[in-house]
């Protein structure tokens, strides 16, 4: 199956994406993640202002049959939450890179960005699974 992997985004091996601009990043889950999870029926996101650490859980996404943690690609404080997603979790399946963005983070360590995967590196990672 072919997965959408926009070139302008950064990725993690946990199947989250980050759209970086300056010292902020918008975060969501990848097309591969939503497809593997199936019908997404519940999303739990952090409160505004919460301090996140890279690779630690910042929320939960649930399909009908499973619960999966969301892992932040970066460290920093949550400055925006897509709270509309809580009532429309199915957007995660339909628009994983668009309206199903999850949180916006103010980066506390921009050095971390170097360890994220580029689109081509993520694509290579997926084909190795």
């Amino acid at each position, binding site marked *: 199956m072919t997965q959408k992997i926009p070139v302008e985004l950064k990725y993690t091996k946990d199947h989250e994406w980050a759209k970086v601009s300056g010292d902020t990043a918008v975060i969501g889950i990848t097309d591969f993640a939503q497809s593997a999870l*199936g019908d997404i*029926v*519940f999303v*739990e996101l952090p409160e505004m202002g919460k301090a996140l650490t890279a690779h630690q859980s910042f929320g939960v996404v649930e399909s*009908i*049959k499973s619960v999966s943690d969301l892992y932040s690609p970066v460290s920093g404080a949550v400055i925006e939450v897509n709270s509309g997603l809580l009532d429309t979790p199915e957007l995660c399946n339909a628009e994983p890179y668009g309206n199903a963005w999850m949180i916006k983070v103010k980066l506390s360590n921009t050095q971390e960005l170097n360890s994220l995967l580029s689109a081509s590196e993520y694509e290579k990672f997926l084909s190795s699974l």
Partner: protein
Amino acid sequence: MTIQKTSLHEEHIILNAKMAPFAGFDMPLQYSSVKEEVLAVRNHAGVFDVSHMGEFFVEGSDAIKFVDFLITNDFKNADILKAVYSPLCRDNGTVIDDLIAYKLAEDRVLICVNASNIQKDWEWISSKVSNFKCTISNQSADYSLLALQGPESEKIMRELGIIKAVDFPYYSILETTINNEKLIVARSGYTGEDGFEIFSSHAYAKSLWKKLLSIGVKPCGLAARDVLRLEVCYPLYGHELNDEVTPLDAGLGWTVKLGKDAFVGKSALSEYKPRLQLVKLSLERGIPREGYEVLDSNNNVIGKVTSGTMSVVTGKGIAMALIQQDKICKDKKYVINIRNTKYEANFHSKAFIKGGHK
């Protein structure tokens, strides 16, 4: 242990199903979307490969007497060509498995058991048969089993010519021969909808599977099956039922007929005071999952969720939970702990939805 495959395994792979090990078999969890599969069964028709389940035959003049002795429900008084759901218990009343017994003839009974318990059931049943004039055989490997479920099932079964009888009510069975293939057909299933289960040779199952898909019946996986049975509150072994509980703990009092002749577990169950009670709970927000704690309104842990999911039909989180009998909430104000957040639950005295079976 080597992982087993059903006769339809290749078909599941062709359909690009999401596969997972279940009870020692590589089984399809879902083909398209769990939601779509559930809705197909509730509104139209879906087909499940449940060939992993076990088939035992009991044959001989004491066949009915023996099965009636083995199980807690009344089998002796069921009509010929009827099916009976029942727990199978130990002498101490704990549940070995739950099963459906099909009364094919005065001297022939088919017992269909859970795949995960085939070996355990077989050993237990073998240990009890010696005083009865009947033989038992484990033919699990010889049979495939398809479950066609949903309101359109009857029309489909008639169009295919498998069902001809004018009257074939729920939990009836028949044996028939089509194209030299012997079939056992039961009007049963575990979805709460009208439907049929077809026991057949592997070759016939494969041709029937393809035929059903070609006329638009949706292939459905074990994930949809679990949601369907939970929406109508049917227990599942390994969840609501296990080696530690009796049927009286798990809301199955209606299947324990203490008034009937001697049966395995009768004396233990006659005196048994239930330790647990099964409750049905739903949430306005959040999804209860197996193992989550259930609390009372004073924050005391009083039980655990045994099965939980998002209901496709109601759009709410639904659960069955086993609660300690002495801690049952008289105010019916149950709380479920989800990742350390407390969610107030709605208490349901009936199943979350009413299935459409007749």
